[in-house]
């Protein structure tokens, strides 16, 4: 954890190191999304984070400028909740994202709203609230990088990321 060591060298930041450890791992997991790995369904060990990403689906999508959970997203979140309730060892960070067709600060707020709406839906399906955290990336972390509607719709998303208690 080179990054943590570096921050710890700065006295002002020492207090933040503990929380950074969790979040740092969570964002690493996100890099291993299904698309990145090119995995087919069923290739992952049941209960693994790959299983979650590939077989359950780690992300939902939103309409433009909306944080309402769509019907298709409700199905995905119901599957996520079922899986998360079965594998209780994971802590969960829900990332909220926006497409680029909004200004930066507004999109940070919109991503926060999407992450919170997703978290609340998971809680309503029985996932313990104390396992869940949220983070907004606004438009800072697009997965699709063309400049048209097909990309924007993929970037308006909430991604449920896992981190093990000890990882």
């Amino acid at each position, binding site marked *: 954890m080179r*990054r943590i060591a*570096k*921050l710890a060298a*700065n006295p*002002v*930041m020492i207090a*933040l190191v503990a*929380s*950074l450890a*969790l*979040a*740092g791992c969570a964002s690493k997991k996100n890099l291993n999304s299904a698309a990145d790995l090119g995995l087919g369904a069923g290739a992952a060990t049941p209960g693994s984070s790959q299983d979650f990403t590939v077989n359950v689906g780690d992300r939902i999508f939103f309409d*433009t*400028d*909306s*944080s*309402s959970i769509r019907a298709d997203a409700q199905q995905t979140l119901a599957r996520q909740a079922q899986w998360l309730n079965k594998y209780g060892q994971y802590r969960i960070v829900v990332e*909220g994202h926006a497409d*680029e*067709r*909004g*200004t*930066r*600060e*507004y999109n*940070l*707020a*919109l991503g*926060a*709203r*999407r*992450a*919170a*709406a997703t978290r*609340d839906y998971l809680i309503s399906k029985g996932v313990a609230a104390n396992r869940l955290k*949220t*983070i*907004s*990336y*606004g438009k*800072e*972390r*697009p*997965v*699709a*990088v063309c*400049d048209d509607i097909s990309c924007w719709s993929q970037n308006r998303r909430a991604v449920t990321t896992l981190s093990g208690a000890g990882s």
Partner: protein
Amino acid sequence: MKKLLSTLMMIGALATGMSAIATLPARALVEIDVNKGTIEPLPIAITDFDGAGLGTEISGIVTADLKRSGLFAPVDHGAFIEKITNPDAAPRFDDWKVINAQALVTGRVSQEPDGRIRAEYRLWDTFAGQQLSGEQFFANGANKRRIGHIIADAIYERLTGEKGYFDTRVVFIDESGAKNARKKRLAIMDQDGANVRYLSNGAAIVLTPRFSPNRQEITYMSYEGGQPQVYLLQLETGQRELVGKFPGMTFAPRFSPDGQKVIMSLMRDDGNSNIFAMDLRSRSTTRLTDSTAIDTSPSYSPDGSQVVFTSDRGGGSGRSQIYVMGADGSNPHRISFGDGVYSTPVWSPRGDLIAFTKQSGGQFQIGVMKTDGSGERILSTGFQQEGPTWAPNGRVLMFFRDSAGGPKLVTIDLTGRNEQQVPTANYASDPAWSPLLE
């Protein structure tokens, strides 16, 4: 697009004496009225300053600044007739009038025995046949570019009656790498793109840096602690600190005009965002909005009595609009009513206008409106552009425009006519203009 045109004002001149020190309060034959706008930029001859390479370098900085302002048209050196051999002596005004140089700048740069640079300039009104101003400056070698900017500001102020903005800096986000793995670094540079210095290493996402009124601190948002939060950075020492411990994300920070407070958004647990002000001395926070809406991008009026901000409280998903409230949160009222989505309001340092980003018809526009929302004018339209910041004289805006792979910084003046890209080595976004240096 509505264009403001200006005329060159021809008014009576008074004779002035020669002075190497003081700016002389003369009335000039040659002046630019920036309120009327300009039909033609003022032709000005800026000779190479005496003093070998350093003289030419500094007069080159003066030339570039004045040209980029759009208010001046530096005359090509090839047209010059008189070769200035003594910058202290009166030039042959006829030689400059005949090439239509309405103003003339001469100067000299030399090295003092103690190593400092000494720079002098004289500004001449060629048609009145007299000197308008003359000053000299001393600086250490590291500040040589600043001397050029200070002289350009002096000339700009003498001929327009407005403060200049060339001796200023810009904090911004340097962006490199692929769009889906963009490395973002906090950076600072002179307003013309020179002297770039990096203030973060790119390990964490950093966003929206803004200057304190004394230019010695910036506040910005960073993901370095996991939960994105607002930080303060002392530019001289590099010392960083968190602006308060909050349960949720803090973002969209700006200083109050007195530098005592940072105003920002705090995410609530339900995902909505409210506006808070934190007193930097007492560390006490004051909640200014309390709505189940997105309230963000707060910006104080220059007298500190009001705050303009973005909110979607008006209902209808995503219809963000611009609101103004008292600095204590009182009487919030909507001021943007045009056809579109408004955000990123920034109060002019002159107090007269609010700059904003507007999304309309699939385009992003940079515009200004009066503080009551009337008189909206769009200055620039593009596919993806946002985030205006004011030059300290309230005459020029800088913003960022995404095109061809990444964002670049762009300036535009209030006429909407003079648009210039700011040269940066990499992609650049989130610019914030400093107050004038001293």
